[in-house]
Every structure is written in C-alpha cells, then in structure tokens.
C-alpha cells in the first residue's frame, strides 16, 4: 500500500507536468493557426470540431484536470488509510484540497480571468504537495542502514 501511495502521489505530480505541457501545446497551436489566417470566435469555440490539431492539448487538459487528477487524488486519500505513511492522510488531504481548488479555479476562470493566474500558481502547489507526499512514502532501506547511520551520528 505504501508503494501504491507513492506511485499515486508521483502520478499526480507528473500529471501537473502533463497539464502544463498540454496547455502550452494548445496555445502554440492556436497562435500558429491564427498566424495562418484562422479566426477564433464563439462559433468555433462552441463548435464541435477541431480548428487546429494542437487543440487536442486543450481537450486533454480538460479531461485530465476534470476527471483523471481528481480520481487520482481520491485514490491517494483512500490508499493513505492503509499505507502507514507518516502523516500520509494529512498530505493526501492537502493534495485533494488543492486539486479541488484547482478544478474550481479552472471552471471559474472564464468568468473571472484573473483566476487564471491563481490557477497557474496553484498548479505548482499541487505539484509540490504531491511530490512531498510521495517522498514521505519512500521505501525504507533495510533497518541496518538506519541503525548504522544513527550509530555513526551518535557521539561516542
């Protein structure tokens, strides 16, 4: 379970990277498309087809952020109950809370564009929290190492 916890936490951190990359890809595709004469209006935004191929980044961002990451965060919380990671549940709750905040920000930023900046910054908090949670669940070296290390530090 400890491994499960660690893998889930690292996956969430990795997802933050994927999310940033996907968004940058979509934005680059948009700029390239507009350069070539494309016009973005609500007819295109509300349309069901893809004006340029890199828009797949935006679709991925939506699916990942709206479903995959929240599910991973939820699974992390559940695994924390069994994983015996020191303060593992607390860290899983922090990750889940930041993810929920992130999703809410994501859905609100069309309303209040300034929240886009918070969404971007909060992504780094999700990454950091997930990474720290994963680090807490590192598989311990055989006890002898710990003992040796402790012994070495012990003033004689």
């Amino acid at each position, binding site marked *: 379970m400890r491994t499960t916890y660690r893998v889930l936490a690292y996956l969430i951190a990795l997802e933050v990277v994927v999310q940033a990359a996907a968004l940058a890809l979509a934005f680059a595709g948009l700029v390239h498309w507009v350069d070539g004469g494309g*016009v973005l*209006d*609500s*007819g*295109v*935004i*509300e*349309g*069901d*087809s*893809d*004006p340029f191929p890199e828009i797949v980044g935006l679709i991925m961002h939506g699916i990942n952020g*709206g*479903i995959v990451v*929240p*599910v991973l965060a*939820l699974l992390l*919380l*559940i695994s924390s*109950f*069994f994983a015996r990671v020191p303060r593992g*549940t607390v860290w899983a709750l922090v990750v889940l809370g930041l993810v929920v905040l992130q*999703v809410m920000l994501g*859905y*609100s930023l*069309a*309303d209040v564009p300034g929240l886009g900046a918070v969404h971007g910054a909060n992504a780094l908090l999700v990454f950091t929290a997930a990474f720290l949670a994963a680090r807490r669940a590192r598989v311990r070296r055989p006890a002898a190492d710990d003992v040796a290390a402790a012994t070495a530090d012990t003033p004689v």
Partner: protein
Amino acid sequence: MRRRPRVLLSTGAALAVLGPLGWFWQDSHLPGTWSVMDMGYTDTGGGAPEAHAHGDGGVDLRTLTADPDRPADVSVTLIARQERFRLASGRTVDGFTLDGTSPGPTIRATVGDLVEVRLVNISVPDGVTIHWHGVDVPGAEDGVAGVTQDAVAQGAEHVYRFVADRPGTYWYHSHQHSAEQVAGGLLGALVVDPSPSPGSAADVLALVHHYGGVATVDGREGDVVVPATPGTRVRVRVVDTDNGPMWVWVGGSPFEVAAVDGTDVHEPSRVRDRALLVAAGGRADLLVTMPEDGSPVRVHLGGRTGVVLSPSGRAPAPVPRPSATVDLLSYGTPAPLGFDPDAPDRRFDYDIDRRPGFLDGRPGLWWTVDGHAYPDGPMFLVSEGDVVRMRIVNTSGERHPMHLHGHHAVVLSRDGVPATGSPWWVDSLDVADGETYEIAFLADNPGVWVDHCHNLPHAEQGLIVHLAYAGVSTPFLIGGPTRNVPE
C-alpha cells in the same frame, strides 16, 4: 492485536469516502426508457395543480395536428442521408444531408399556407426528426424524438403538417441526436412570406453554419456576393444555426432590424455603425438601404463571413465590429402585446447554475435548473389560456441561448431594466452569465414542449426541461425501441 482495529479503521475511513460517492453515482443512472411526463417534479407556478393526465381521459398529443382534411399548399420531400458530401464552397465534409445538400433546401411558403413535409430517412443509422425552429406548430408536429414522435428509423418516413401562420424567417433541424446531427448539417431554412408580398425589397437568405470549424453562409465560404440595385432596399435574413451567438454589423450603409425570431419589430429605427447580437438558433432580418451612388455594402456575419450587396460585383473593405450595439430592449417603439403580463396566471423561475456530480454515472460539472440536475428538473405545468411569466437567471458561468418550443415569449426586462422598445418577441434568447431576464408568453398551444439551451451540447449535458399543458399527455418515450435521443 493492534493490527485488526487499524485495518477496520482504515476500511471504515475508505468506505466513508467511497460510500457517498458510490451512492451519488448509482443514483445518477438513467433508466433505459422513460417518459418526459415522469421526469423531475411538477412546478405549477402558483396556478391550479390540475390533474396531470397520464393518458386516461386526457388529450393524446398525437391528436394535436393541423386540419387533416385540408390539402397542402406547399409539399416538400426531404431525403435524409448520413454521408460525405460537398459544400457549395467545394469543401468536402462528413455529415448529414437533406436532398443531397447541406444546408437542406430552403422551404418557402406564403403566410396561411399549409406546409406538408415528408421526411424520408435513407441512411442515418441513429434515426432523424425535423423540428421547425421558431414555428409554433401544433403539438404533434414539433419533431422532438421521444417527446412528440419516434425518431424516423433508416428506411422509414414521417409526414409533418402545419399552417405557416406567421410571416418570417425560420429554420428546421433534426431533434434526434441533435447536438451531433445539427452540427453535421441536418438543417435548412424556412421562409414564410407575407401576403400580399411586399415586393419592394430584394430578399437574401444568410444561413450561417460552421462545418468542421469553417464558417459558411448557405454553404459558401468567405464573402457571398449578391447583386443589388443602388437606392433599393434589401432584406437580409440572418439565421444563426450554430451553438454560439453571432455579432452582425453592416459596413457602408445604415440598416434597420426589421424582424427578430420571425416577428416584425414595431417601428424599427434606422441605425448606423452598430452591431446586433443574434442568439444561437435565433434569426434577424436586416433591412439594408443600398447607397444611391452605387457603392457596395457588406453585412458582416460573425467576423469571418459576410454577405456583400454590390451593384458592380466589387466588394468593399471589411470594417471592424462597432463597439456600439443595437439593444433590442429599447429598439423600436411599443405596441400592444395581446395579453397583460402584469396579471399572470403562473410564474416560473428558470434558474440556471451548475454543480459537480454525476450524470448517468459520468462525473463532471453538470448544469442545474432550479437547483436540480437532469433528469430531476422542474416540469412547468400550464393550462391553455394562461398568461405565464418566467424569470430566467443565469449564474452558471456560461452563456445560454434559451429556446422554448411551440411559443414566442416577449421580453419584459433584463437585469431589472424594463423593456421600452418594440415588443421583443423571441423563441431563442441569449442569456449571458450573470444576466436575469423576465419574459412572458400566452399558453395558447397545447402540447408537451421542451424548453432548453440551444447550445446543443449543453442540452445534451442536461440543460433541458419541459412545459406541459394540463390534460395533455404523450405516449412517446425517451430511449425505447426506437432509441429516441432528442439531444
């Protein structure tokens, strides 16, 4: 000994997290087949809670038709196909055609005509229907799969009959898998001419549709050049068949907004350098006066396409969208409504919001109407002859073009500011996020009418409720053997 309680505690915590989620998930599953009559809860709007008939002694919606003995004045056959086809512009598109083309043939009638349309499904596997968008047809002819008819299966056909009783610009489209089929081109225009024909103005249809992200006017891309005589007036019938609203403005001439959603504006004033927002699903007839000196005029349709009215064939330079707008709330002059909206028999709230949850087992952020997600929203119950007032409040974070079938409603106020212009009659009303509209209508068309967002993917995501008349029932079912999927 310590291990056992710990495992129990962990399992308990996991169940405490998963249990409610599982329950919400399970609870959100839709049955395979259901009647819209049984959906959600009944909202009587403060009126009498008449027995809501379920077939016993009530009026069967199928009997609400035009006079069956009257011969048709306009007869049309529409052949529906799912295929790869070529637009007028030459571009090849995977989608849907009617009579081999998309947009389908323009149906033209004179006011008072009985229009009879035979719909034949040759090759659309999911089935098709035709909804007469903006025409207040009899209850049986509305073309909503699972509500007013069964979807027309491949190889089958269906006949629609209605009297085109109001002159104006309308359109038609499938209401089976509508989000997919309308985007794919299963649509066309319906124009009802007044009688006698005014004759003075030239008439140009401008049906705007995006195919695969490409903006078109009547299937053509870029500027559509139409010859026009200097000094004459040209009626440009703008139809927005897409899921988003469209700004329309005119470069090179003043114009009037002669009609909105198939209803003439009362005493429209001539405006210049102003833009008009046409709701998704909505229509606007612009009356353009051609300059005497023979210079051309461009009617800009959403920024990427336009109609160029030109005596010489020469196109004028595009002009940017003016920041000033034509606000229909104060455009034109008042006229009688035909009923008193200040003495309503029913008052309904249509509050649009959204919240996280499950819809048919799928997690997401789903639309709610009056706090209820699909299919638990309200059914607005009216009796024939009722004056109905409805307040639409949108706090959902997105714009919604609201479309009530079978009726035209008049806008009373927006954000508390009363309407002061011509009666603003709508069938498709663009409600931006944060806006509140008060509308009123006369319940004069018995039936079961859906009232939904015409950003069709939103309707697919549950932004749809219905208006039912006391005593009227429908035998049709969503789902069922004919796989009716209206959205």
